[in-house]
């Protein structure tokens, strides 16, 4: 009689535990999905930023701009051949 009651309790307990675990897992799953979308969004943002920075770098280092800065702001001039000793 006791063992029958015990097994009923055990079964009910297991069912309750599994049900709780299931709820917990689905919660984790949900949290993870939110995290995944956030990280994916961040990844896309970073990719976008990388493209922009690439372009910015290319614009800032374009030879014509560097030449102008070297000549007007830094007072530099192209080396004359006699100034090129070991290029």
């Amino acid at each position, binding site marked *: 009689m006791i063992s029958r009651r015990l097994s009923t309790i055990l079964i009910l307990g297991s069912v309750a535990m599994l049900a709780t675990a299931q709820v917990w897992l689905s919660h984790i799953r949900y949290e993870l999905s939110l995290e995944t979308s956030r990280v994916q969004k961040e990844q896309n943002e970073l990719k976008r930023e990388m493209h922009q920075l690439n372009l910015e770098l290319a614009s800032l280092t374009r030879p014509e701009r560097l030449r102008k800065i070297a000549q007007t702001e830094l007072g530099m001039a192209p080396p004359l051949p006699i100034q090129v000793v070991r*290029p």
Partner: protein
Amino acid sequence: MSRFAKDQQDRVFIRRRLEAVAGLVAVGFLLLTIRAVDLHWLQADELQAMADRQHFRQFESVAPRGPIVDTHGRTLSESIEVPSIAAIAREVPKADVTKLADALGITEKRLTKKLSRNKGFVWLARQVSPATAEKVMALNVEGVRQESEWRRFHPLGPEIGHLLGFVGIDGDGLEGVERNFNDKLSGTPGIRLVQRDARGHSLPGGSWLKQPAMGKTVQLSLDSTIQSIAYAALADGIRQQNAKGGSVVVMRPKDGAIVAMANWPGFNPNSFGKHKPGEWRNRVITDVFEPGSTLKPFTIAAALDSGKWKPESRVFCEDGKYQVANHTIHDDHQEGWLDLTGLISRSSNIGIAKVALDIGSERLYNMLAEVGFERRSGIGLSGESPGIIPPIGRWGPVETANIAFGQGIAVTPLQLATAFCVLANGGNYVAPKLLAEQPASQPRRVMPAKTAQTIITMLEAATGPNGTGGKAVPAGYRVAGKTGTAQKPSADGSYEDDKFTAVFAGIAPADNPELVVIVVIDEPQESIYGGQVAAPVFRNIVATALPYLGISPNQSGASEWQLLNTSLSNSSELVSRHSLIRLSLREARSIASARGFQLRTHGTGWISRQEPSSLDSVVSGDLVEVWLNE
């Protein structure tokens, strides 16, 4: 009524009620069963599809276009995501049109026209600045939304616009490299299937129906620094000559790599809509011109190849006037007897014509065809011209004589560069190439190495003190090159009296060729001669490009160079002087450094003589010679 009868009646009533309720329940169950069969069986497919549409969502993931980079990996074209403003036209309230137009920076009339074009989705402004998008979205107008699109940017702008071309608003390459390598550059958009919960959040475990792939990188053999040097030198030369336009192509002869390819006026691919379609053309490959005297080296090569002529063979140049059939050939300078080197350095049309007539049209034709003048080079850009060489059957003595000195034949700057690469490569033809990864084509021998070397020696003489190309030589380097001046053909088949093309084709350094540079100046006004107009542009390019490439100047004549390791003062009083006479070498160097001209010195002490006599007309890159006395 008796009590029994009443009870009986109540019982019947209750039973009927129960029966009625049971009947209703049965009917209800029946209806539910019918509905269940209807939903689960008859409408199952349709409803399942509806549910899927709610649970699953497909996202298109746009893949950006691949970048174009130069040989050192520097960005030449790059795509970035920019906002665009769209609307569902029927949802936009009429009252908001004015403020919306104002935020978009367009007229109300134009916006109304856009909104009336279609009741559904319409673009209001594509690829706008983030600030504009923010302004529009802050208005919170019903039906208006922000979308993302990829926009192509070319950071070098007009310097390289003709070569790179541009991309249309829908992301397809429409001109130049962008068009011809569109398949490689274009990204493949991906499609992702995502399951959503009741609140619309994505659930994990989505799957790619199609993986997105970013477009591939196209790496050109071009060097953006040399491209910029070439463009700046060309623009300077054209401004000084008040010319109509011009082109430059720089090639590395060893592997045929195109290092720079510039046209002037430039074309800015970032705002291609502001230019006329004719200005998009990459004239280095699409436009032909008569090469004039720059073709003479190939006539001489054909003569040397024939075995009938030696470098020291002499020709009488008829004192400047020579009759071929019914046609008279003139020389700019009257010449008597000249050897083959003299023909090149003095650029005698008559002498070259006589040589060509002696070897015959077929040998000349074969040489021109072998070095690449009658076919497209195949660098992979569309619109390339094959040039114009008349069919050999139509070459009479007049045609042979004319073609020998570059008249009656038309070539592209790229073809001329490829032909000069043959000379630089010791007689081997190497096809030009535009992509860095592309292996160099198998060299094909088209003239003996000895012939090519002899021609280079002759071309070096042509840039020497007695040649026409003296202005092409940067101090410290040896250069082999040929000037050319050609009248432009007119629409009626004759020649324009006052329109010329000035050309310089050169190889630098002459002793170990690293670069072949072709400069073509269209309709110069101040002078018409290649030696005056195009040669200085060539010099300015190689004088900057060779040190950049790590090629040392020739120091063998070190005594000529009074190498001083002094600190250069930069006094403005000195800098504005018209003459260097009576100055010390140190002061002269200081002025040369500040004004950017080159200084060649002889002797020691104080400057007593200079050439040119005044510094007023000296521009950056020119050579000034000074003689010093104790």
